[in-house]
């Protein structure tokens, strides 16, 4: 994953010019091995979850969906198809990728051929794929909603990881710990939100105001990183809010049946 924030002389959050998804896809196809591996890693982190969730909701069992996920990246994303089709593509990249995936999934016989074509050991490193909890989702979600659901999850995973890493690099571990305890952890693990007073006591923070300021600092960074990730896939800044709301509705819908 590309780092989108770096230390600067003024110790501010530096915002480099963002690459596009096409830059990464073209990098994968370049002959330069280090660049190719780095770009593959990025693609893997960003796209495998939505692709896998979609395929599971299409009725493929776990092992089959894993092979097809690898096959999709090997044949379509890294292969020529995606770049060729992209020349005619309009609209959001998420929608475009879903359309391409739908076409790919039409031929179920690809599950077998995909396994044969993909390099031994797989093209992508599909972290945590064997531990994903998807069974509940399969019963009440459409494949396209499952794709967007996986997209939202991958997005949040990346944003959380990046903000945590940036806080760490900037010596703001305590900022992140407080934000995490107050905001992230209650959401991820359904634990009760600790009071500011408790956090202050636990981490030796002087006052509630100081703890609150820490949360606001990380929140701003979280917002900025999240919006940059979303911006990466939409056509304009004005579409970012719309895209976030769409993903919120998808999460809300997917959770309604659980």
């Amino acid at each position, binding site marked *: 994953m590309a780092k989108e924030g770096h230390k600067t002389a003024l110790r501010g959050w530096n915002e480099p010019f963002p690459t596009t998804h096409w830059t990464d896809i073209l990098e994968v196809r370049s002959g330069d091995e280090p660049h190719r591996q780095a770009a593959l890693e990025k693609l893997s982190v960003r796209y495998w979850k939505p692709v896998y969730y979609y395929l599971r909701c299409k009725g493929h069992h776990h092992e089959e969906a894993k092979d097809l996920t690898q096959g999709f990246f090997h044949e379509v994303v890294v292969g020529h198809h995606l770049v060729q089709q992209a020349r005619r593509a309009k609209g959001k990249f998420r929608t475009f990728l879903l359309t391409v995936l739908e076409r790919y999934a039409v031929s179920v016989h690809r599950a077998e051929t995909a396994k044969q074509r993909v390099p031994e050991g797989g093209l992508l490193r599909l972290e*945590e794929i064997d*531990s*994903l*909890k998807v069974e509940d989702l399969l019963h009440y979600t459409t494949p396209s909603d499952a794709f967007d*659901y996986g997209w*939202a*999850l991958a997005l*949040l*995973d990346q*944003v*959380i*990881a990046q903000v*945590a890493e940036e*806080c*760490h690099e900037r*010596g*703001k*571990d*305590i*900022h*992140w*710990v*407080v*934000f*995490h*305890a107050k*905001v*992230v*952890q*209650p*959401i*991820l*693990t*359904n634990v009760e*939100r600790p009071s500011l007073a408790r956090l202050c006591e*636990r*981490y*030796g*923070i*002087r006052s509630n105001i*100081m703890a609150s300021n*820490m*949360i606001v600092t990380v*929140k701003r960074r*979280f*917002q900025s990183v*999240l*919006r940059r990730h979303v911006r990466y896939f939409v056509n304009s800044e004005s579409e*970012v*809010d719309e895209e*976030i*709301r*769409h*993903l*919120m*509705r998808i*999460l*809300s819908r997917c*959770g309604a049946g*659980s």
Partner: protein
Amino acid sequence: MRRRILSSLAYILVREGHIFLPAADYSCGKYTAHEHVKTQHVLDAWERPCMKKETTNGSRPQRLAWLLAIGLKGGHSEGNPGDGQTPAEVLENILGTQLPLDPTLPNSLPTVLSWTSDEVLSAAGRTICDLLLNPQTHLVVIRTLKDYGKGLVRRAGSGAKETAATVIYYAAIASGLVFHGRKITRHSYGTLHEAYTELDRKSWIPSELKDLFGRAHAICRQRKQEA
């Protein structure tokens, strides 16, 4: 020199997550090793989230929407709208915003509801106006809108903001009466009847809301007579 070495050592230990420093020292980058020894705490797994891989796997989807809400910019603002505006303009602004879903805001829904209500997430991304006028809006959401309106009235103090917030408050009560047949306030039907009579006179209130008030007015009049 000894002090510098100790300081460097402490810095490395902190960066590697082996010891914890008080935030005030830590955020300023002032490391004094002997102070660390006095105050250090070993960070366990719970306290070192940045050291382990976080994942959304297994988290409830509706709760994850709260995290996405942090990214919204065009939605709710905790700023100070209303200065120099008419009640109609302030009301239009409030009605057009999404519910405050950002979990880091003090008056946001996750805070108000103590994270207990997943029904509220069905309101994600929808405007207050949509929610008030939609018969499908869950009663929990309507109650929350009423509380939200009440909070706005308190914070507004007086003027256009207070007037507009009052409309939101009574609109939520009307929504409960009209679409769910439930009175979500301790005000009597008589008091509500008077309030909706008064609101009916406000020409600047949008017609959709006035229709809602008209229906609530009729219900209150009937229930008042029955009582």
